[in-house]
């Protein structure tokens, strides 16, 4: 139908309620979670097959849905495969962790159905070769994430956060739809390749710039670019921790990646305009995220603001529009997904055992839960960009790319922000690990082993990528190359005509 990994995700998502119903009848509450984890492994297997196909394809691009030349509903290059791998792997960690974490909640069948739907949506977005196809998968991702944020509906906070997220995200989606209608009005097509080809001549077209502004605002809401970020801290802190990890680790990055793909392909002729705009937004996003993170006493809210700051770094890398910058950003997306998933899952373990997110009450929890505490410390040191952990390399690569692109002021501001972020990361380590346990912390017991396994693998990855970054930088470089190779992307469809 679409491509094997996407088909697998969609079909297995549709089958989840049936599996859950049978499992509940038999009294096996953990089956939906195990089924969802197995589904993601199946999708990862198919994705590996697709990767092999992309490797041998002409120009490294596989088109699907209908035959070339017109069948470019899906256009899969190395960038698409790279991002899809990240979604599936992070999704797998979150799902495995959820089996124990969510065991006391009701509606688990719906939970895993929505989780698979969200991952399918994100995968569809990076596979899309047509704006309308992208929008349909965008809706799938958004819709499922609204319900997942508000999943623990018996409390007021998730409902409020979900509603805020729904309103803001719907406004963003409507803005994208308006931009799409303008693009269709100008070119008579929504196919990315044809749009890239048609708008090459539109350098002085005023309406192109209006459409550009709408695209940046529309995708910017999901990418949590300041000032469109206000939904994120509420949604990330109110959602169940595995969902916070998914939202923070990969979903907001999907917004940034969709934005940069559309900008590079469709608005290539307006590059000078959006490059500077993106760089300015990136700096606002870094400062907004870091300054707000300094003020937080809520563990998950602090991590949410740190995500905003990291998105600023990622967007700055994209704004350099260079191979180095894109490589650095994609490498940081990988690292940030690993580090932030680790931190949110550790936070989830602390919160599950103490029933609080308040840092004042969580003092010394690392001494009571030493294994989780060590993993949390590894994640925090990694995201604070201390060598030799993974965060150091990608953040330094972003700075280096900025300097090479002669964006010295922006690079300096990025460096200053990275230094600023160390303050609250070290505050986290001091509170969680070094201080004496409070009464609340002392009541906690150790986290279950099944929740520690994903944490162990993620912490290992932080160290492993840090000491052996070569293959991961290489993969990011290939993905960046695919993202920049606009002619090959357009040629894969239009060259066949």
């Amino acid at each position, binding site marked *: 139908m679409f491509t094997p990994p996407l088909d697998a995700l969609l079909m297995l998502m549709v089958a989840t309620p049936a599996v859950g119903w049978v499992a509940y009848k038999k009294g096996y509450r953990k089956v939906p979670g195990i089924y969802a984890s197995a589904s993601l492994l199946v999708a990862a297997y198919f994705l590996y097959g697709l990767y092999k196909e992309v490797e041998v394809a002409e120009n490294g691009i596989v088109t699907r849905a209908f035959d070339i*030349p017109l069948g470019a509903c899906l256009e899969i290059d190395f960038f698409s495969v790279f991002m899809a791998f990240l979604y599936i792997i992070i999704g797998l960690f979150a799902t495995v962790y959820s089996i124990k974490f969510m065991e006391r909640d009701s509606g688990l069948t719906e939970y895993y159905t929505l989780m698979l739907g969200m991952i399918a949506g994100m995968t569809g977005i990076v596979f899309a070769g047509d704006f309308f196809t992208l929008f349909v998968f965008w809706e*799938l991702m958004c819709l499922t994430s609204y319900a997942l944020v508000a999943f623990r509906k018996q409390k007021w906070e998730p409902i409020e956060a979900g509603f805020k997220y729904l309103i803001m995200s719907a406004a963003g989606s409507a803005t994208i739809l308006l931009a799409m209608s303008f693009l269709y009005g100008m070119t008579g097509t929504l196919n990315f390749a044809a749009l890239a080809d048609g708008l090459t001549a539109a350098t002085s077209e005023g309406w192109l710039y209006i459409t550009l502004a709408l695209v940046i605002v529309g995708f910017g809401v999901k990418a949590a670019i300041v000032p469109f970020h206000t939904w994120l801290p509420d949604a990330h802190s109110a959602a169940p921790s595995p969902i916070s990890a998914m939202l923070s680790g990969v979903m907001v990055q999907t917004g940034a990646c969709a934005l940069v793909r559309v900008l590079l392909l469709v608005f290539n002729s307006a590059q000078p305009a959006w490059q500077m705009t993106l760089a300015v937004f990136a700096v606002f996003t870094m400062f907004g995220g870091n300054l707000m993170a300094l003020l937080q006493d809520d563990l998950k809210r602090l991590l949410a603001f740190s995500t905003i700051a990291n998105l600023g770094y990622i967007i700055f890398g994209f704004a350099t529009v260079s191979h180095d910058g894109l490589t650095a950003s994609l490498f940081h997306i990988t690292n940030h997904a690993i580090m932030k998933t680790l931190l949110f899952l550790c936070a989830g373990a602390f919160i599950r055992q103490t029933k609080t997110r308040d840092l004042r009450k969580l003092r010394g929890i690392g001494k009571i839960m030493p294994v989780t505490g060590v993993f949390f410390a590894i994640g925090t040191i990694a995201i604070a960009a201390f060598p030799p952990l993974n965060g150091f390399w990608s953040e330094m690569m972003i700075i280096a790319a900025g300097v090479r692109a002669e964006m010295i002021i922006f690079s300096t501001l990025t460096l200053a922000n990275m230094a600023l972020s160390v303050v609250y990361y070290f505050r986290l380590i001091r509170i969680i690990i070094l201080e004496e346990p409070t009464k609340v912390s002392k009541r906690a017991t150790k986290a279950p082993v099944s929740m520690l396994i994903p944490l162990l693998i993620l912490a290992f990855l932080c160290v492993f990528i840090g000491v052996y970054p070569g293959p991961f930088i290489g993969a990011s470089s290939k993905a960046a190359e695919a993202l920049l190779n606009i002619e090959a992307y357009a040629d894969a469809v239009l060259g066949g005509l």
Partner: protein
Amino acid sequence: MEIDRIGVVGLITTVFAALIFSTLIVEYEFPVFKYADPDQPPKLVESETAIIGQEVSRFLWDYRAIDLIAQAFVLFAAAACCTALLRTEERKK
């Protein structure tokens, strides 16, 4: 009465944006299908046919089935969302 400063700034910005947008609509004519002309240089890719725009748009109207299939999954997800949020609570003791 207490004035919400952020609200006031938001209102002014919205009115300002609406004014700019209205002015643009009145002042600049929308280039309807101007860039759908396949002969208009410069082109990103050399193509043997002269009707790329029309071909692609015809395809868009004729072959939206693939998006409709995806839309069916969106509807399924919407139903799952409703079930999740309207479920009766049975938290395990």
